[in-house]
């Protein structure tokens, strides 16, 4: 995967397939050395311990289960390439929490990519899911919550093209606010 937005698009498909109706995407910059931390949290059906252990192995998992393939192994690879790591915690019936860490200044750290576009597409294709998007850095914080947006919409679909464009622009502004001057690719 070329950038983080593609990983987000890919990994959230696992949450959707797990029947989640609440998905949080948290992206933060923290620590010394500075790490870029991506968290994806869902309330889907979860995985048992054995499954979580196997889920990062592309060969074992793709052979034993049809639901899992290369998505997580590729994210693990992207994190490892940038001196980071991947952690997955899950509980059957409760949900899954995935955390990928990247050393920001590592030469192989993948860029953010077009995150506003990815989020727009996720909301458009899955309007009934409650999405929470959070960005944070030492500079600032940003939150977008689709349940909150729906309160203002009065029955207009969140998948309406003008609403989606507003969401995309709002997220783009959020990224500039939080990561401008923090990540090289955001000015």
């Amino acid at each position, binding site marked *: *995967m070329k950038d983080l*937005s*593609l990983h987000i*698009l*890919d990994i959230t*498909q696992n949450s959707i*397939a797990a029947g989640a109706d609440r998905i949080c995407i948290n992206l933060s910059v923290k620590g010394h050395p500075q790490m870029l931390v991506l968290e994806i949290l869902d309330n889907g059906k979860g995985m048992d311990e054995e499954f979580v252990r196997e889920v990062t192995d592309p060969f074992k998992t793709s052979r034993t289960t049809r639901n899992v*393939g*290369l*998505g997580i192994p*590729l994210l693990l690879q992207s994190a490892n390439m940038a001196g980071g790591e991947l952690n997955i915690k899950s509980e059957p019936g409760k949900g899954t929490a995935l955390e990928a860490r990247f050393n920001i200044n590592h030469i192989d750290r993948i860029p953010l990519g077009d995150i506003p*576009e*990815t989020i727009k*597409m996720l909301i*458009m*294709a*899955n309007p009934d899911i409650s999405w929470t998007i959070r960005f944070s850095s030492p500079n600032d914080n*940003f939150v*977008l919550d689709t349940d909150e*947006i729906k309160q*203002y*919409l*009065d*029955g*207009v679909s969140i*998948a*309406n*093209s*003008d*609403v989606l464009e*507003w969401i995309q*622009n*709002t997220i783009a*502004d*959020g990224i500039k606010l939080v990561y401008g001057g923090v990540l090289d690719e955001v000015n």
Partner: protein
Amino acid sequence: MKSIEELKAIRDRTLKEMSIRDNEDKMRIVVGMATCGIAAGAKNVMNAFIDELNKRNINNVTVSMTGCIGICRLEPVAEVFDATGEKTTYVKLDAEKARRIVAEHIVNQKVVTEFTVGAAER
């Protein structure tokens, strides 16, 4: 947050227009968005569908995602469902092909045979 006022204005505008568009026949475009599709460029394809529909002010077509359709070697893949439920599977897509599908299949109701799975497998 970008102004909530803007959002409210969009809502009011849309509520006014909504009654005109109700009950029209719905077509659906479903883009394969599993790891195989994403790695092959499905994101650009989906965005081209959305953008082209918006440009042409077409509101009665929904664009959604699905998992792996099972023909990973032919990704990016998209399925177009007509109002009657008839399905056309398009393969090896890119943004430009997506725009042509909107123009020819969605607007003019003419299947773009050369992009279909039938043509690719021949």
